[in-house]
């Protein structure tokens, strides 16, 4: 047997002990999982340090400046996490063309009618909860995938504006690629302003994303959370009995 079947042998249906056949599917390949967790960590770091850079805490006291360097470290962590994020994003971008069907870039941009239909269905079933049953999605559903695409655009914006701001402190060639952004946006002050404002997109995303993962597990029972660790998902087969 190639796909392990779980619970097929249960004898008598009792409430809460229903027999069902599940198929095990390998959905999230290693690069995708790695990207997910590295991104999660670096975004968390970037949000916290980014917010603190905008609003320095009045938490550490020293008599003289040479005794501490916490704001400097804060900025260091911010810059380091940013470079990590850029690196894993490039890997993920490559994997969007190279990985399995669930990782493909096609998922993320709703170009087909089917994707839009699925988005509509999700709005009625999961968001507004007007309808009770929806289709089960093994990979990303069309709406989630689209939201990741928006998030990717936010990444891109933060990378470009962030590197543009960073370039005046650095001799590295890479950071000077985006120098043109500063005059375009009307000076460093504006770039910094928008870089800070877009931080909130990530905060909102985290709230909704974390909630929905719990929701998905809670309602669908698809093992969404463990899947991002193991890569496996379970799909309920049609029952044959």
């Amino acid at each position, binding site marked *: 047997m190639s796909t392990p079947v779980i619970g097929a042998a249960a004898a008598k249906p009792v409430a809460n002990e229903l027999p069902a056949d599940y198929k095990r599917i390998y959905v999230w390949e290693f690069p995708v999982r790695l990207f997910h967790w590295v991104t999660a960590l670096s975004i968390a770091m970037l949000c916290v340090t980014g917010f603190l850079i905008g*609003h320095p805490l009045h938490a550490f006291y020293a008599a003289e400046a040479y005794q501490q360097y916490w704001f400097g470290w804060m900025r260091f962590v911010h810059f380091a996490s940013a470079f990590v994020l850029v690196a894993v994003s490039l890997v993920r971008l490559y994997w969007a063309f190279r990985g399995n069907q669930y990782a493909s870039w096609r998922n993320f941009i709703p170009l087909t009618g089917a994707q839009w239909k699925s988005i509509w269905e999700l709005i009625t079933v999961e968001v507004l909860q007007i309808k009770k049953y929806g289709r089960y999605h093994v990979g990303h559903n069309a709406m989630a995938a689209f939201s990741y695409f928006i998030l990717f655009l936010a990444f891109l914006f933060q990378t470009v504006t962030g590197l543009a701001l960073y370039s005046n402190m650095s001799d590295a060639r890479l950071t000077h690629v985006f120098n043109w952004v500063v005059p375009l946006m009307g000076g460093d002050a504006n770039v910094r302003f928008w870089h800070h404002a877009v931080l909130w997109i990530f905060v909102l995303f985290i709230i909704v994303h974390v909630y929905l993962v719990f929701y998905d597990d809670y309602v669908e029972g698809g093992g969404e959370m463990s899947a991002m660790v193991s890569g496996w998902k379970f799909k309920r087969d049609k029952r044959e009995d």
Partner: protein
Amino acid sequence: MGQTIWQSMQQKGYSRREFLQFCSAAAVIAGLDKSSVGQVVSAFETQSRPAVVWMHFQECTCCSESFIRASHPTVIDVLFDVISLNYTETLMAASGFQAEKSLSDTIRDNKGKYIVLVEGSVPTAEDGVYCMIGGKSGESILQTVTADAAAVIAWGSCASNGCVQGAKPNPTSATPIHKLVDKPVINVPGCPPIADVMMGVVTHLLVLGQMPELDDIGRPKEFYGRRVHDTCYRRPNYDAGLFVEAWDDENARKGYCLYKMGCRGPVTYNACSVVKWNEGTSYPIQSGHGCIGCSEAGFWDNEPFYQHLPSFPGFGIESTADTIGATVGLVTLAGVAAHAVLTNVRKKSVIEEEHQDDQKE
């Protein structure tokens, strides 16, 4: 005309010694090393005095005021003696038709050789009626004057980026010079620019006869290549996270970093913390006031000045991106909570239905 700089200095009574002093100072200001003083000397012995016209449009004359306070006495005196400042509305003795004639003569006699210094922005709305001189619009004067100029320098933020007249909503369509003139313009922003920086730029033009190296937006790199923040003496406090929290607190007295008081040093390119003002006496941050970023484009629109984050466009003075972000965040949390309640209601009925189905089978 035709007189060399050295000849004109002799006429004014300068000694050879003073001339050499001037040459070395000019070389230093232009960023040359000691070995090239000889080059400067020979240039000043052979070059003719450049004709200069100083135009004033929408401005407050603070750039002129700053310029005449440059700290190196030899250099600034000589500059005023040496260059033939043939036209400047503020300082010239001539007036009326005489003044107009001086301008047109200069342009005619020095085709391709004179330097134009522009102070102020040019309003382009309604055919330029907001700034008329001698019955002509600022823009038409600018075009005539710059057409045959050897070099154009835009003094101050008005001429470089519009400054206060160009602030939203910019009723007169105040336009910086480089957008109107189709030849390279040296932008020397600041409200006003530092006197010694202005002197440095002019000296560079005189000594080397060429433009200083400019950055992407036309500012001389030697003075605008670094942020105020990078050369600020309070920077160690910034890195240590020691900030002034209120204007009159203990931290302010200790001279901590003014970042939280809205200091724009981190986003402002200028030489204030190096060159300083009033003969190197001080600069805003040294006096306990944050930088307001007066040499940056649109700095008036990044209000309020005493707050780190500017207010969010369209949401009133009090709301920064953070207050809006936090509000939207809370609304999202509330939405999520409501959705969770709804979900539980639905899940209950789903479970019941499934069980009924199973029981039926």
